[in-house]
């Protein structure tokens, strides 16, 4: 029996009008105060925004806050999509359409008991969630979100400021390196928990994450041969100039990268590390309260950064046909480019979620076979083919690249068709099962 006051509050929060009014009442004073005080601090803010050093830094912190918020929203979106996929409603109790669910989740995580079991390695146990979260949060620094912008109050001779936090020489190799640091969080969580479920989840996740890094590296090598640069902003600019997204030149390399990023984020169908039926919670079985949530923050932040990387490298970044290109540095064009980039990232996240609720989990031997015997040889052949095309100056020829991809795909299909080894089911070299003994 629910307390009538609680029920009344819940009903009130489910009213969209109340929600909108409350949000307006909370933001209006802040906006009003900011507007009233503008003469005192406006020049300072304008100066910061026009500065070539401070603007990328401020934009980076803005993106960091947005990613942290987006992870909370992603969890709601995931539960909603899971609900629609399974023909139910998903969360709809807290707030209108469940919109306050992330807030409720966050508060609940924060106020839950922080249990540190007696047998764990305390230092490593506390370090592990940090080691999972920090690499996931620093990866996006190289993403070129929206090109360059020139504010109306900037002098005409000042250089445009960039929306990219760090323009590194090593480019996307930085993201690759930082992304693979996430494996330490997982393996330490498994080791420190002193729990067999955690331990097996941890070593499974480690084997999986390191195995799928190789196809990822090979796919990015194919792209690198064509682009001739590691800097993502240059790769986006090339695609925007030619109007030809690299996914049209390297569809198979993109598929390799997409599959690997599913595995790198430990998401279904590659979520063996947390296979509930076998390992309870996997490597985070012993974690509670916000330490548990940090692993999920890391997973969703990884997903967002990975989607942004794929959008930047293969789907033209902020480029869309008919919209203003890099030459237009007005703030309207910058916001348009940002919207296009974020829109593409949202589509990718939707794809991630749809696939999680559509495709069943692999078995561990299948997982290893896909990485080492399927994707790695395919990636090597693709790389060799791209190198041959490059040697003959055909690396930007759509038809040559298409022929290469079709040939590699046909080779893979022929090999799979001839090998007569079932992809699913029991491995044929295991001894037969006697039916009577279960």
């Amino acid at each position, binding site marked *: 029996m629910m307390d009538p006051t609680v029920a009344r509050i819940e009903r009130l929060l489910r009213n969209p009008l109340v929600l909108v009014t409350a949000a307006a009442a909370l933001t209006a004073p802040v906006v009003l105060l900011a507007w009233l005080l503008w003469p005192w601090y406006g020049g300072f803010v304008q100066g910061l925004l026009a500065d070539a050093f401070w603007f990328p830094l401020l934009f980076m912190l803005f993106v960091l806050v947005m990613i942290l918020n987006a992870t909370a929203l992603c969890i709601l979106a995931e539960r909603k999509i899971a609900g629609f996929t399974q023909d139910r409603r998903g969360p709809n109790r807290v707030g209108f359409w469940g919109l306050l669910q992330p807030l409720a989740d966050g508060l609940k995580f924060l106020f839950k008991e922080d249990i540190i079991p007696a047998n764990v390695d305390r230092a490593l146990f506390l370090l592990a969630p940090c080691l999972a979260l920090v690499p996931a949060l620093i990866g996006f*620094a190289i993403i070129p979100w929206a090109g360059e912008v020139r504010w109306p109050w900037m002098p005409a001779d000042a250089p445009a400021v960039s929306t990219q936090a760090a323009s590194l020489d090593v480019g996307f190799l930085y993201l690759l390196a930082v992304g693979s640091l996430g494996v330490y969080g997982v393996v330490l969580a498994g080791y420190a928990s002193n729990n067999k479920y955690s331990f097996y989840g941890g070593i499974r996740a480690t084997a999986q994450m390191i195995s799928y890094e190789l196809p990822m590296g090979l796919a990015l090598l194919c792209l690198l041969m064509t682009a001739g640069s590691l800097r993502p902003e240059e790769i986006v600019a090339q695609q925007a100039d030619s109007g030809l997204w690299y996914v049209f030149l390297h569809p198979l390399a993109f598929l390799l990268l997409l599959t690997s990023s599913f595995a790198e984020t430990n998401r279904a169908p590659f979520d063996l590390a947390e296979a509930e039926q076998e390992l309870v919670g996997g490597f985070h079985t012993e974690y509670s309260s916000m330490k548990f949530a940090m692993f999920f923050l890391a997973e969703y932040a990884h997903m967002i950064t990975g989607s942004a990387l794929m959008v930047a490298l293969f789907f033209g970044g902020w480029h869309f046909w008919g919209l203003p290109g890099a030459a237009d540095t007005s703030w309207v064009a910058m916001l348009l480019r940002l919207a296009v980039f974020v829109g593409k990232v949202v589509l990718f996240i939707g794809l991630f979620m749809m696939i999680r609720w559509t495709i069943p989990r692999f078995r561990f031997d299948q997982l290893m076979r896909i990485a*080492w015997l399927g994707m790695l040889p395919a990636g090597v052949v693709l*790389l060799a083919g791209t190198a041959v095309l490059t040697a003959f*100056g055909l690396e930007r020829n759509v038809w040559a690249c298409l022929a290469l991809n079709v040939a590699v795909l046909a080779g893979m299909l022929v090999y799979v068709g001839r090998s007569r080894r079932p992809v699913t089911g029991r491995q044929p070299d295991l001894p037969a099962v006697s039916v009577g003994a279960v």
Partner: protein
Amino acid sequence: MERDWSHLTFAATEFTNVAVLLAVSIGIAAAILVLTHLLGPRHRGPVKEGTYESGMEPIGDTRRRFNVRFYLVAVLFLLCDVELVFLYPWALLFPRAAGGADAAHAAWAQGLADAGYGPLYLLGAGGAFLVLLLLGLVYEWRRGVFRWT
């Protein structure tokens, strides 16, 4: 005596923002840990602090022998990953040596070709490297490293 602090002046490099982001992220992670430790309730007990293994008494310690294949996969990964990292400079420079479109590196490419390292030589060198990678993979495959029985 006036001390010279000029060597301590701050000069922004391309990694400055990465360092700031790293510091902020570590701060966020630490703040979360501290907050959740302070805000939550605290009820200790031998059962609550025990290892959760589906209600069973844990049998022995966790840190004991596990399947050697995980070790093999890790060693294989190290070998292949190092080879892949070696391929990155090659993949960056080979198209510049091979492609005529890149005017900025035409003289450099011509110099390479004059020294006997033309595009086809570089292609063969990279190919030999890839073949070595594949040979190692086939050897491990035949040895049964990928058979998870």
